[in-house]
């Protein structure tokens, strides 16, 4: 036992040990960061072509997870005239309207409409028993498909980083804890800096070891979609730019079978609705997302794009990966 408490490390003068420990933490974090950068090798893969039949909801899922899909579906229902957002005093509600037909709804939109019923509050969309729960089947399908295409970080990538992550934790915690015990055993109790170093090191290591939800390939694919459809964004917005002069909003126009504004929201996020007649939707859902997130999940916008958020929705990344965090990082 003597060797454990009587060796150069255990008896090292505190400030010197802190310098050594600081270097050790720094070196460990560097190694961890280098290892992490090697885990995602998808940038070596060739980018998949843009399909002729674009699924705007799958793109929305890639960009921001199931919450982004839910937002897009609600917007589709609103744009197609099935629901409307109304202010009832201080409360905002989504009410059903009386549409002439359901023929132009696709399956996911019908499911959302059935869930909606007559009236809902925006925050209900994101609650654990809300629309996002109804869309679980779609979540699984999109997740599996995009993981298979290596656009989302899969379990294999996470597990390949797990060993290095735990090794880093062990080094940082192990050295700190050992010195802490040795110091106490030698009767030194001024260990606050040692504790601060350990905790800071562990927090930074945890932050570094967090893999982005979207892989390099997925990110490049999103950028490619945004490049391909960038002029669509402006063309789609143009008829809906808010104006003080009364005018008729055009009926939904199709664009190779896809509504251009819906596709734009899928590809770029609801932030593109700013300044249009749908701005109220944009603002309402930002607030709803914040309310829902605040009540069920402590992680904020800053932690978006991580696959290891503690958020119960299990889907992070939010639109900070594509369309601005204001759209609601999940």
């Amino acid at each position, binding site marked *: 036992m003597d060797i454990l408490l009587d060796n150069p490390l255990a008896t090292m003068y505190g400030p010197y040990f802190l310098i050594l420990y600081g270097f050790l933490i720094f070196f460990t974090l560097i190694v961890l960061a280098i290892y992490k950068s090697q885990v995602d090798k998808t940038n070596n893969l060739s980018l998949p*072509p*843009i399909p*002729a039949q674009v699924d705007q909801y799958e793109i929305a899922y890639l960009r921001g997870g199931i919450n982004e899909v839910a937002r897009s579906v609600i917007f589709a229902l609103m744009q197609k005239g099935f629901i409307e957002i109304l202010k009832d005093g201080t409360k905002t509600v989504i009410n059903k309207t009386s549409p002439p037909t359901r023929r132009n709804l696709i399956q996911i939109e019908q499911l959302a409409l059935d869930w909606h019923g007559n009236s809902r509050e925006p925050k209900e969309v994101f609650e654990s028993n809300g629309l996002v729960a109804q869309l679980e089947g779609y979540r699984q399908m999109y997740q599996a498909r995009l993981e298979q295409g290596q656009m989302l970080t899969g379990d294999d990538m996470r597990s390949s980083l797990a060993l290095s992550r735990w090794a880093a934790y062990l080094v940082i915690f192990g050295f700190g804890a050992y010195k802490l015990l040795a110091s106490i055993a030698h009767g030194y109790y001024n260990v606050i800096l040692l504790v601060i170093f350990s905790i800071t090191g562990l927090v930074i290591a945890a932050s570094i070891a967090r893999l982005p939800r979207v892989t390099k390939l997925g990110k490049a694919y999103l950028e*490619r979609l945004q*490049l391909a*459809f*960038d*002029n669509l964004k402006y063309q789609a917005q143009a008829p809906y730019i808010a104006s003080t002069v009364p005018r008729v909003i055009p009926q939904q126009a199709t*664009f190779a079978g896809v509504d*251009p504004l819906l596709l734009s929201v899928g590809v770029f996020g609801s932030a593109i609705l700013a300044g249009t007649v749908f701005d109220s939707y944009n603002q309402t859902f930002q607030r709803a997302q914040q309310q829902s997130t605040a009540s069920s999940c402590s992680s904020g916008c800053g932690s978006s794009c991580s696959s290891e958020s503690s958020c119960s929705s299990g889907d992070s990344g939010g639109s900070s990966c594509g369309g601005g965090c204001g759209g609601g990082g999940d």
Partner: protein
Amino acid sequence: MEKLTKLGIGIGFRQHFKSDLFLHQTEVDFLEITSDHYLDARPQKIEELKLLKEHFPLIPHSLELSLGSAEGIDEDYLEKVAELVEFVEPEWFSDHICFTKSGGVKIGHLAPVPYTNESLKVLVKNISKVKGRIKTPFILENISYTMRFPSSEMSESEFITRLLQETDCGLLLDVTNLYINSKNFGYHWRGFLDKIPLEKVVQLHFVGSHKHNDYLIDAHAHKTQDDIWEVFREVCTRCDVKGAILERDENFPPFEEILEEIKTARNLVKN
């Protein structure tokens, strides 16, 4: 030229159509890109070029080789076009039978050359330089013009025939330009077709013409008219066209209208 791959019917790539193109990929066989838009390009334009290349066969079409300039080819420009062609790896690339620079000054217009032996020599020399640098098949486009040189020693059809023979280039026959010139200068386009080596025709350009006062103009802004379809049809029955491009630069219609024109052209090429 007969060994070249048939590309089908496409359109001249314009930003306005970009999103439509990706959503209608199966209906557009290939794209013609304006080379000048990708020379000294910003990274975003290079990304766009890569994106287009991965989804469509591309044909670079340049504007400023100025093959008819007596001062010779601008070597910097040629080098940039060569780099673009190497990157795009097209079946062929093209420019115009005209001059766009004089004394090193850009004139901002596709100007006709006098149909003389001297200009023929200039063109042959310049084209030989281009072909010496770029090994990809090179094809030459007939332009529309509003004036003809009194000093011309031969007809346009004879000039083009001799040029194609002496340079072994293919012909990018702009049927709209042919129709416009024939109307503006009072000859029949069929007679023109009779005189040129139609086996050299590789690609066609087509678009509607625009009447301004008494003159027809190649404005690239109108739907192809029946008279021009008639020229297109005749050319397709008389030669093995490898590709045809709809050139639309202004007054953009809904993309469905563009697709209709592509469909019409496809039917004519098939038949």
